[in-house]
Each structure stands twice: as structure tokens, then as C-alpha cells.
């Protein structure tokens, strides 16, 4: 060991010169590689992407618009002409489902993204710094938690103009959807703050902002990703219930919510009217969850392929 150590001591830098320093794999590549290894997640992500592109790209190519009436085909089951069948007015369900998907996916993903980001920011800032920031932010969280959000949204959305209705729906749903998870993030952050790797980073002179982004957030990522995928489902369902009650998306606009609401009465007699939009909804939420799982496993070195070694079997 002595000889080896002195050899190291004398020849540290020259011995290393043969190595190309550019070969270190960056963290992003590592995460991407781990994600790609997870087949179901990759398939789900591709399906989501296809669905998102499809619901915007396909409708212009279809022979029927979502509001066109085909009087020769009322309540027809799926056929070559109408792939998803038609409803009682003779409207093509494929066109209507795609159109509904546009709104629902937009609402779902935007709300999930916004509310989870807000939750992560507020929770980690409150938890990491503590003090007055913590008090003010938690006061805001408590305030928002007692506001009857559903009623508020129901009152505001019908008053907005048609074109900006979706926008306001997204903003309001996101504004009332982050409080519980921000409290969870705050709790986790407070315990992470005392961990030695965070203290070490602080003593190394790493800025608070960098500590939050590089240490705190990746370590609460599991919660955040689960939260985001759940939020996708929650936002789509919230929009559905609002639309069902006549507040959210207003006719003649359609969303998956209004379509499901339309199809519910005839779910047993004319199942395709109900099953097509409902199946689409399930598929979206399922794919979002699978993608989220894959992302979580990729970010968390302890899960999936890289299991911890059993150090001390008892």
C-alpha cells in the first residue's frame, strides 16, 4: 500500500493524462438510459405522444367534422364508415372523441404540470428556508384549502368568453390543486434539509437555489411524479364533472367529459356511445401513470434494475 500510495502521490496528474476527460456520462444521459430500459413506460410515452399528435392532426383528414350530422347513420355501431359508430344525432363519434381529447389532454397535462410545479416550488422553498417564508406560504396554503374551489370555478368559468374558457379552466383547476402536495413536499424537504449531503453542499458554498434544484427536488421526485400523474387524472375528471353539471366546457364544444355524460344514459343499450370516450379517458390516464412510474424508477437509483445490494442479511 505504501509503495502504491507513493506511486500515486508522485504520478497523479501525468498518469491520468492518457484518459480522455470528456468521457464522463452526464446525469441526464444516465436517467434517459434507465428510462429507455423500461419497456412499458416507453410504450406508454409513445402512445401518449401519438394520441396528442393524433387528436390535432387527424380531424382535418376525417370525412366528418365533430358537429356534422349524418342522417343516414343514427346510433350506428362501429363500422368502416364510422370507426367509433355514431350517436343519436348521427354525429361521428371518432371525430367527437378526438375533439374531446384535444381539450381533455390539454387541460389534464397543463393542470398537472402547473399545479405540480407550484407545489414543488412552494413546498421546497417553505421547507428549506423555514422562518418567515414558511409562515407566509403555509398561511396561503391554509387559506386556499378552505376556499370552496369547486363553487368558485363553477361561478367564474361560464362568465368567461368561449375562446378563453379552457384557459381559465386550466388556471383555476391548477390554482386549487397544489396545496396538499406542497405540504407533503414541505415536510419531506424539512427532513432532507438536515441530511448530511445537504449540509455538505452548504459547507461547500453551493447556493441555496442550486441545493433546492439539484438535491432537494430530485429526492422528492418520486412524490412529485406520482402527484403529477394523479393530477392528470384528477384534472380530466374535474373538468368532466364540471362539464357534466354544465359549467366547464360549454356546448357546442365537446370534451371527453361531456361525451361521457352524453353516453351514460345509453351505456347498456348503445355501449359504443359511452365506451369509446370512456376507453380513451382510461387509456390516457393509464399511459400517464405508466410513464410517471418509468420516470420515477429512472430518477431513483434504488428502484428497478439497480437494486441495493443486501449488505447485512439478518
Amino acid at each position, binding site marked *: 500500500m505504501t509503495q502504491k*500510495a507513493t506511486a500515486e502521490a508522485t504520478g497523479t496528474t501525468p498518469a491520468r493524462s492518457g*484518459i480522455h476527460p470528456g468521457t464522463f456520462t452526464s*446525469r441526464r444521459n444516465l436517467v434517459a438510459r434507465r428510462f429507455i430500459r423500461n419497456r412499458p413506460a416507453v410504450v406508454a410515452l409513445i402512445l401518449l405522444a401519438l394520441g396528442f399528435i393524433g387528436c390535432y392532426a387527424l380531424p382535418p383528414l376525417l370525412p366528418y367534422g365533430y358537429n356534422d350530422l349524418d342522417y343516414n347513420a343514427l346510433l350506428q355501431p362501429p363500422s368502416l364508415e364510422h370507426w367509433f359508430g355514431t350517436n343519436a344525432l348521427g354525429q361521428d363519434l371518432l371525430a367527437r372523441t378526438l375533439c374531446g381529447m384535444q381539450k381533455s389532454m390539454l387541460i389534464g397535462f397543463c393542470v398537472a404540470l402547473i399545479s405540480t410545479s407550484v407545489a414543488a416550488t412552494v413546498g421546497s422553498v417553505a421547507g428549506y428556508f423555514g422562518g418567515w417564508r414558511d409562515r407566509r406560504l403555509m398561511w396561503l396554503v391554509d387559506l386556499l384549502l378552505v376556499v370552496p374551489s369547486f363553487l368558485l370555478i363553477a361561478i367564474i368559468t361560464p362568465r368567461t368568453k368561449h375562446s378563453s374558457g379552457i384557459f381559465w379552466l386550466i388556471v383555476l383547476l391548477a390554482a386549487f390543486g397544489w396545496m396538499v402536495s406542497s405540504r407533503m413536499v414541505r415536510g419531506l424537504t424539512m427532513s432532507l434539509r438536515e441530511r448530511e449531503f445537504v449540509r455538505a453542499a452548504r*459547507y461547500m458554498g453551493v447556493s441555496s437555489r442550486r441545493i433546492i434544484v439539484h438535491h432537494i427536488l430530485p429526492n422528492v421526485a418520486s412524490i412529485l411524479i406520482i402527484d403529477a400523474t394523479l393530477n392528470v387524472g384528477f384534472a380530466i375528471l374535474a373538468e368532466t364533472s364540471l362539464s357534466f353539471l354544465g359549467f366547464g366546457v360549454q356546448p357546442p364544444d365537446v370534451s371527453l367529459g361531456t361525451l361521457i355524460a352524453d353516453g351514460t344514459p345509453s351505456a347498456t343499450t348503445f355501449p359504443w356511445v359511452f365506451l369509446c370516450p370512456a376507453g380513451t379517458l382510461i387509456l390516457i390516464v393509464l399511459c400517464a401513470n405508466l410513464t410517471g412510474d418509468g420516470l420515477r424508477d429512472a430518477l*431513483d437509483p434504488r428502484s428497478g434494475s439497480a437494486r441495493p445490494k443486501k449488505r447485512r442479511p439478518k
Partner: protein
Amino acid sequence: MTALLEVTDLNVTFDTGEVVVPAVRSTSYHIDPGEVVAIVGESGSGKTTAAMAVVGLLPEYADVSGSVRLHGEELLGLSDNAMSRIRGKAIGTVFQDPMSALTPVYTIGDQIAEAIEVHERDISRADARNRAVELLELVGIAQPERRARAFPHELSGGERQRVVIAIAIANDPDLLICDEPTTALDVTVQAQILDLLRTARDVTGAGVLIITHDLGVVSEFADRALVMYAGRAVEIAAVEVLYRDRRMPYTVGLLGSVPRLDAPQGTRLIPIPGAPPTMSSLSPGACPFVPRCPLAIDECRSAEPDLVPVGDDHWAACIRTDDVAGRSAAEIFGVSTQPLPTDSTAGEPPVVLRVTDLTKTYQLTKGVILRRRVGEVRAVDGVSFTLRQGRTLGIVGESGSGKSTTLTQILELTTPQAGSIEILGADVAALDAATRRQLRTDLQVVFQDPVASLDPRLPVFDVVAEPLVANGFDKRRCDERVAELLSVVGLDHADASRYPAEFSGGQKQRIGIARALALQPKILALDEPVSALDVSIQAGIINLLLDLQAQFGLSYLFVSHDLSVVKHLAHRVAVMYRGTIVEQGDGDQVFTNPQHEYTRRLLAAVPRAHADVAGG
């Protein structure tokens, strides 16, 4: 004489579905009544599993075969109910962590009484309680009547362990199994607990099976020792024989890597190279120690040696036992233990850290709405010391002595409550933001727990590069510096893209040291950097620290509770007790001629290894 416990050809395999882990492989041992047998080994060597198989406390997916006989009665294959009648009655168990071994919601008196009532159905409540109080007195708890009504959290760590021992001996067991009974305790408490275990053995006449990684405890307490490696017993012998005439290279390495109180400062230890094997990927038909063994020959790779008698009641599993006999560890492992030559010509080096009258108090407050002061805790009370360049100052103390608080105060680089801290000539109270940032790069820290101090979500490259990025290094210079640092601490270049969880404890600590060295600091604060590591790994880290000091002229502020480690590293030693420094001086002086009574108590409590006759 018939053996009390006879374990023959014990095999334990954990099948978790994905990997099959042979944790214990054909191990045999026996314990006579009144005898103390120690199982020694590094973490993951299967020592706990080998002992827990006796009491049947293994998870359900463990596959156990072989034979375990207590008084000639087979225990393996008994139903859980039948085992429950033996556990706590014929076999008492003492666990490592006394806090989690006791139920927090019952008083300790009730818990001891319960242990008695479970096995003696017809005993009355009052009698059980009286017995509990007697037991508490026996294990040396003052005012047992009153303390029996205390809850576990109201006791100190040592007292809790005493209660656990009281529960273990409550039913006069024939066999006492102690799983690392003193690991979680301070040195002085550890000595008391070992005394108590000795008393417990004398009172009950039980055989004792003690599992430990601490070789000092073995030599102090045990009659016979069983050295385990990779799930097998590799050497069994009486303790004196083992220290005098060990025959298995692994035992040699294990004994050689123990830091010693009688070694001069700077003495290098003999680490066993490499790390313990992963049990799930053992190559069959080869001695598992081959990759780390200095004496390995081709024959070692072809067959796993059996335990063969090499002397009177002395077995070793090695084919080269004759080559081990009589040679010192340094000779066998081909390393030198001599201190590195230091230039003692330059007189007194400059002071890099000066702490004067540092004080830190915590307010105790009561009430939620009307908060009022009810007192204060003086965590650090008027501490002064200096650290010179290229030297090591060891701060020694037991838990609660304020040594970690002192370190935190220095690392915070903020104005202390009272007193002053001067780093590299700059008073921290007078720092502005820019100079504080500058000073941060000169003072770095290595923490105790290598698992907690590395962000589990960051690959090693990002961990080591973090201080560089934070101080504005660009990508290319980062890459170069990380490559250099990894080689300095003895890690592989390819390790950079792995996650910390994939490394062993010693490697993780090396990563932690690499990170601390990244900015070429002048002072390194070491907060118990080796106490979470196995002894053979610990030796490697201590050597590394010695090398780095010689190479870069680093000053170490070394905080530890382990006196023998401090002895190896520190030029000067400060002994802390209840927030104050009770003794301070040159390392040799403090250790050979302690002035303060507490220092003497601390030194006396350290379990000493037998003098290694063959060692040098």
C-alpha cells in the same frame, strides 16, 4: 462434557426471488456451559444470521438446513409456538440497539415483568413485579423501585441496554445471545456493559454467544472466537491462541488492521485490500478470500478449503496455514507500518485555525403561546484550541460532550454566540459575503455516515464535481479535476457514472473524501469519518488520510470517540467532557500520561487487544 449448544453444518440461504444469497454455508460450532464464544466478522459475513438461526429469528424466506441442538435437543424444524417457549426461557437475547428493543409505550418494569409472566404462567402480578425490581438492581440500575416505573426514553443508552439484559436473563437462561451489544454505546458505558454481561454469565451460569465486529471486545470478554468470512467459519480458536498464533490470512488482516493505543502517531495500518465479496455471486470451488489474499496460489482457486485442525482446539480453513505461522501481518501483506518521514526541520508551522472561548448555548423554553425561558443548555462552554498547518488536532469525547457542536460552529462560518473563531488569520465575525465564500473553499468537511452524506440521486461524477461547479469551474476543467481526484483516493475512472448506492461503505467514504478535496482546501474537518466502517476498511481510510496529509500538507480537525483511531492520526489531542475541554496536549503525552481523571477513565475503558506476539 456435553456441549450446551451444538451447531452442525448450518446452512442458511435467503431466496428473495431474484437473487439467492447463501448467507451462512456449512458452519459448525459449539458452546459449553459458562463459556463465552464470540463470532467475529465484517458486515455481511453472515455472523448475525449464524446466531439468529439458533433462536429461529430469521425471515420466512430463509431456507435453513443442518442441525442446531440445545442440550441435545434439535431446535431446527420446531414450530414457532415450540420455539417461543424456548426463546426468552432457555435462550435470552440482547440486541444491538436498546432503544428499538424496548417498547416505548410500556414502563421498563412492566416489560421485564411481562418477560417473566410469559414463561411462568402461575406467577402472580405482584411477584413478577418484585422479580423485575430485583433484576433491575442486579443489572445495576440505581433506585430500582422508582426506575421500574420509568419509560424507555427516560433512560440513558447504557441504562436501556441494562434493561434489555435484565429481560434476557429474567428466566435464568442457559444460553445468552448478544448481537453487537455494545456497538451503539460510548466507550465507558461499553466497559460497564461488558462487566455486567460477565456478571450475568456468572449469575446464570449460561453460555454466551456474542456477535461483534470489535476485536477489542473479543479479547476482553470472550474465551473462544469464531472468525467468519463470506458465510463460513474460517478460523476457530481460543482467544489467546488466536491472537498469538493465527493461521488464516484473513484473521491476520483483521487483527493487523485494528488501530492500537500503543502505536505512535502516523503509524500506518495494514488494510485488507479489496472489499468483502457479494454473497449472491460467490464463485463456487474457490476460496472466497482469494481476491484479497496476499498468499493466494493457484491451488486456492481450485477448491474451497475445509476447516482443518492446526493445533489443539484450533481450526483454520486455509491450505497455507504453515506460511502464516510466526510471520507478522505487515510481512504477510507486504506493507510497511512505519510512519511516513515528515520534515520536522521547519519548526512550528503557522496556525491555520484558532478557536478562543467558543460558547454555544441552547435556550430551553416552555409554553406555546407565552414562551418563557426555563433555563439553558451549555452545549459548548468556553472551548479554546489551535490547529497548525499540516498537523492533526483530535477532539475526543463521548456522545453529548459537545464535540460535534464545536465542529458545526466552526463550519457555519458565522459569528459565534461568544468567543472567536479565526480561520487562516481571518476572524469569521468580520467576514463579508465574498470573503466567506472564499473561505468556504479552504475549509471542507467529511462526515461520519458515508451513506447519508452522498446524495443518493446523484451519480458519483456529479457528487465530486459539485463543489467545482458551485465555484465556477467549466465542464472541461471539472472532468479533469474529477478524474484526478478519483485516482487520488484510489477509485476507478469508470466508477464516476455509477450511483453511490452501488458502492461499499469504504468506497463511499473515499468518494466523500474526494469531494472534500475537490477545491484543494487547507483544512479538512473530519467528523468521525471511520466509525461507520468495518475495521479492515477503516484501516485503508486511515492510511489514505495519512497519505493525503503528507501529500498536500492538509490540516485535520479530527472529531472522534475512538481513542485508538485518534492515537494513530492526531499530533495534538483535546479531550472534551460536558462542553468543556478537560485536557489538551500532544498526542503521546495525553495518551501515556493523562492528567485529568476523565481522560484516565476514558483510556481505561478502551478494550485492549492482546499483544500480538508475532506482529510488528
